[in-house]
């Protein structure tokens, strides 16, 4: 590989725009799950931790690499668990059509992917 200089900057720029656009369209009601969801996404750092740990050649590197994987895995797993729980609650109450006033609108569950 070899992502250097301007190629890296292009990647960063396009990714930053993507993040900006995705959040810009989110209703305030989803801000907490989304913050939690993006928190989960940067749990991908665990992959970097694995790379560092697998390539460790001294005890120091092993110890710090172990820490990196430990923390990264915590970030990913915890972020997923919390976000999933939050969003599951939206599932039950969220499927109502907008104009339903109260009471008799049945809770229609959206299909799972």
């Amino acid at each position, binding site marked *: 590989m070899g992502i250097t200089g301007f190629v890296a900057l292009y990647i960063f720029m396009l990714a930053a725009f993507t993040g900006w656009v995705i959040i810009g369209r989110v209703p305030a009601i989803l801000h907490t799950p989304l913050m939690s969801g993006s928190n989960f996404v*940067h749990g991908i750092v665990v992959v970097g*931790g694995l790379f560092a740990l697998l390539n*460790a050649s001294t005890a120091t590197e092993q110890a710090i690499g172990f820490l990196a994987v430990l923390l990264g895995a915590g970030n990913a797993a915890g*972020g997923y668990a919390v976000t999933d729980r939050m969003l599951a609650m939206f599932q039950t109450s969220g499927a109502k059509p907008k104009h339903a006033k109260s009471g008799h609108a049945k809770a229609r569950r959206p299909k799972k992917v």
Partner: protein
Amino acid sequence: MLTMIPQLIIGATDLAAAFLFMYGLKRMSSPVTAPSGIFVAGLGMLVAVLASFLYIFGVDAAAKPHLPVNIGLAVVALAIGGGAAWWSGKKVAMTSMPQMVALYNGMGGGAAGAIAAVELFGNKAQGTTQLVVTLIGALIGAVSLSGSLIAWAKLDGVINKPLRVKGQQAFNGFVMLATLAVGSYLAFAAESGANPMIGMTGLICLFFGCALIFGVLMTLPIGGADMPVVISIYNAFTGLAVGLEGFVLQNPALMIAGMVVGAAGMLLTLLMAKAMNRSVSNVLFTNFGAVAKHKQGAIKGSLKPVDAGDAGIFMRYAAKVIIVPGYGLAVAQGQQKLYEFVKLLQAARVSVKFAVHPVAGRMPGQMDVLLAEAGVPYDLIFQLEDINDDFATADVALVIGANDVVNPAARTDKSSPIFGMPILNADQAKKVYVVKRGEGKGYAGIVNALFYGDNCDMVYGDAQAVLVKMIEAVRGLGLSAAA
């Protein structure tokens, strides 16, 4: 170097992961598709983690003898870290979500910092650019780690009071500069091969120490009410650190995922700060609330406590009630009882709406999540700009555990620290009930003129206990007596 096939598989899975993350986040931007969004993103994470074990085919010669141990360590770390966090994330109460997000976020920052540390200790950086990027990522990751931990401690109640001392900002600035100086010297020493007095190892430790201390100092003076903004900033920080370390490791999936989160977190931070009518730097560097007490104009009137049951019955015979939930509701875990009460009112043909302030609670949208948990349908929940005109025609505004977000001083009192912040106009309702634990002040530490208004009565007590009393009182009337 990696042999051909594993390299291709890793490349393909990383590409897939980057796509799934962005597609998942996109799906999370609508309530209907949101639950599937996190599933899609989770799938991306799973394949990326599994594929990363293929790195074993391409480890450096120096690391070869350690490989079995390293693989064992990796599996153990994944199991412990992932298992513990999964368990705690599933078990924690919904009201504790904000601090859990802060905690997991800090872990991500710590992981990014640790990766940088491995690179630095192993002196693996190739060229000045990589070295500098490693250091910047390390700095941001470490600040995010210690800052998030302080945010967690504050939200969890381990640290109660914002810690403020004189000259704090100057001192924080000094620590920041010291960190940067150590980092620069570190880069210089590593490049030129100079041998610093305390040795390379000592210098690296000093650098991380300074960065961690700066994160702590930066977060300590910030008050609880500003924590949503702070968590959001650290979320963006961690994303940025992950992206930078991704560049160092030449891993595009990390670069993209990290930068997407970094940008998204920044925008979210700006949106939240805007909702409070303050700039981000104002949140971070102003000792909010410390200036307030003396300057405040005298407030006329007195606090008028009423019985919870009486307030409940009054609302039962009102035509239009708007409920303003706040952090107090979350603390008391009163959301289920609240909706039970609302259903009683609805059965008596009272029109009930919820008004949610953008920064109510300790995270943006925390109230929406709580109400959703209790089963409150979306169409009853309104955001500030959609409902604020309705207060003037409402018979009752029921404020539960909210304070600063309904303080009219934000509209009228120029000396107030929250002046200019958009608030919910609860004071314009014909009658206002405020459910509160005691006569304490809000997180901004200022007196709320709303509570002293002629149209306002106070209902003291734990939100859940108060709601139980209201429910009992309204039930006592019998539903058949609907007007």
